[in-house]
């Protein structure tokens, strides 16, 4: 374990921010205040944070429809994100994108993506660019178990191997793609085995264990930064909510989530580990909790009060010049 105290606190703060952002959205969405479809990342926090803690603003990530966690872990402004999800004029994408289309190019966040499998090819292009720039930067491509069945993802992995690109393909196996289980839809024994079949190093970790994700991602990024080509990381995890908010989740046993909340909670695991080891105290962690709750309250309050975009905005931003 190589993390300093401040880094441990950062990791905890990011994971807690994601968790509370999503828990609060779960409540706000039920009131009807938020337009569209929202996919919550609750439960998967250790993956986004364990991976993105290794990245600087000029390293890239591409994300998915379940992208809030990736955005926060990569440093996107939490208030700007919340405003975007509310469809406000000063949201991160001016209210034009919404939950499934948050991007922040200053933070190397190349976009959430509402097309499953849309991201990985884009990640290869970003990696080509950093390779040409010769700046040693890397790209992480986040995707779900379901996305691993998409042809575009296969093509991207092969391309990355052929071109020896500095791309990390992260697969978050949360057990389901919408209403269908991974064990049905992924024909091979696991996703990592497929990735290895493309000719890249592929590893598997417990996605509820921040330290396991962090350590393995670090090792894989080192390989990428040495110019040794792409790698893959499969993370076993669960989601604490439905596929989207409002999902009746008939495909899940009634007690499944409750059990996972007990056994697979990355925040609980983190707290136990750092206090058992004496790295952090409960009081220090509680102070972060208080700080995070205040941030989320502020984000929601500001979002509720923020003005919607002017309708003239419908016509802007289609092209740079036209």
């Amino acid at each position, binding site marked *: 374990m190589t993390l300093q105290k401040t880094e441990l606190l950062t990791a905890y703060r990011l994971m807690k921010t994601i968790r509370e952002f999503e828990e609060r959205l779960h409540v706000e969405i039920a009131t009807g205040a938020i337009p569209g479809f929202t996919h919550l990342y609750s439960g998967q926090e250790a993956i986004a944070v364990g991976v993105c803690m290794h990245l600087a603003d000029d390293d890239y990530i591409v994300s998915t429809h379940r992208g809030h966690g990736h955005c926060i872990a990569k440093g996107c402004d939490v208030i700007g994100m919340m405003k975007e999800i509310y469809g406000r004029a000063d949201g991160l994408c001016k209210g034009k994108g919404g939950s499934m289309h948050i991007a922040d190019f200053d933070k190397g966040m190349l976009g959430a993506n509402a097309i499953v499998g849309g991201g990985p090819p884009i990640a290869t292009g970003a990696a080509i660019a950093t390779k040409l720039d010769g700046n040693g930067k890397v790209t992480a491509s986040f995707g779900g178990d379901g996305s691993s069945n998409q*042809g575009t993802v296969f093509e991207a992995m092969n391309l990355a191997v052929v071109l020896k690109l500095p791309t990390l393909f992260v697969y978050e196996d949360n057990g389901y793609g919408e*209403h269908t289980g991974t064990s049905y839809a992924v024909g091979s024994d696991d996703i990592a085995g497929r990735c290895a079949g493309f000719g890249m190093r592929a590893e598997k970790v417990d996605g509820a264990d921040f330290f396991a994700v962090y350590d393995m991602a670090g090792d894989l990024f080192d390989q990428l930064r040495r110019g040794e080509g792409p790698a893959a990381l499969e993370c076993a995890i669960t989601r604490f909510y439905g596929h989207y908010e409002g999902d009746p989740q*008939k495909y899940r046993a009634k007690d499944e989530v409750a059990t996972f909340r007990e056994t697979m909670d990355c925040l609980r695991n983190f707290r136990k580990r750092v206090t058992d080891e004496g790295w952090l105290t409960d009081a220090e962690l509680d102070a972060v909790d208080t700080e995070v709750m205040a941030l989320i309250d502020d984000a929601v309050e500001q979002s509720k009060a923020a003005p919607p975009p002017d309708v003239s905005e419908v016509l802007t931003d289609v092209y740079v010049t036209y």
Partner: protein
Amino acid sequence: MTVKTFREALNETLHAEMARDSKIIVLGEDVAGGAGGTGVEEAAGGIFGVSSGLFKAFGAERVIDTPISESAIVGAAAGAALAGYRPVAELMFADFIGVSMDQLYNQIAKFRYMFGGKTQCPAIIRMPTGAGMNMGAQHSQTIYPIVTSVPGLKVAIPSNAADAKGLLTTALRGDDPVVFFEHKALYPRKCDVPDGDYLVPFGEAALVREGEHATVVALARMVNFAEKALDALAADGITADLIDPRTTSPLDLDTILESLEATGRLIIVDESNPRCSVASDIAGLVASEGFDLLKAPVQLVTAPHTPVPFARELERAYVPSPDDIAAAVRKVVAY
């Protein structure tokens, strides 16, 4: 006649036709749902419930849940159709057609012609379409103009439950590939639906309303919006024919031209983007085949040339409204 929702009409048609024809199979993501999960079988029945109950009625062999693989879904429909089956493939959202495009426009659309008429490919590709649910740029599009332009594909776009039944039945009993668009906002809408066998022929427009002063052509959800506009205009004594083409390929131009003989004034309403749209297509055809009938410039009421925005206020401004339609009618009538 029985009052049914658009969703029920489609669902019951699939049940009835699958019972009638053992060669019909259904495939797509979560058309049943629940496979590999810890909950119940058939946990979804299609993301909008259109394939509900099919899995229970016809089993996993004919109601096939697929991985997230649109190219393989549409391609499998192509191959099954060549091999004698009648596949109904569902794309969860019309926007995902992009992932499957080669199989649709290079393969399915071209088999019969390329192979010298020796085969047929009765694959039906169903897909929810349209804006109105704040689902953003990649889940809200009406991309039917793209497929309408492809020779070899037929394109059905019902605007009500009765036509949904009639057009889907015709598609399932025909021998050509059909891209079948279901506007998301229409699923819960009800109307009288004929009982028993009911077929609506392709290439035959519906005259939804008769009127005097103009001809309004509208598709899918825009038919409802046009009716609202005409209701409002009635107060000022303005009436119009309202024509729903129902299929854009083949297109019933004759019904539109006949109406124009009486009215001379044409408004076309289309939720798609304006360029190379169904609206511009019909306007072009009327200009070349009905030039003498026109007494005023044709009015196109469409979405703007932009992607679909997310925020409620922006999406509302994006989608043509009954007010936009009424204004266009007033404009041609006053011309």
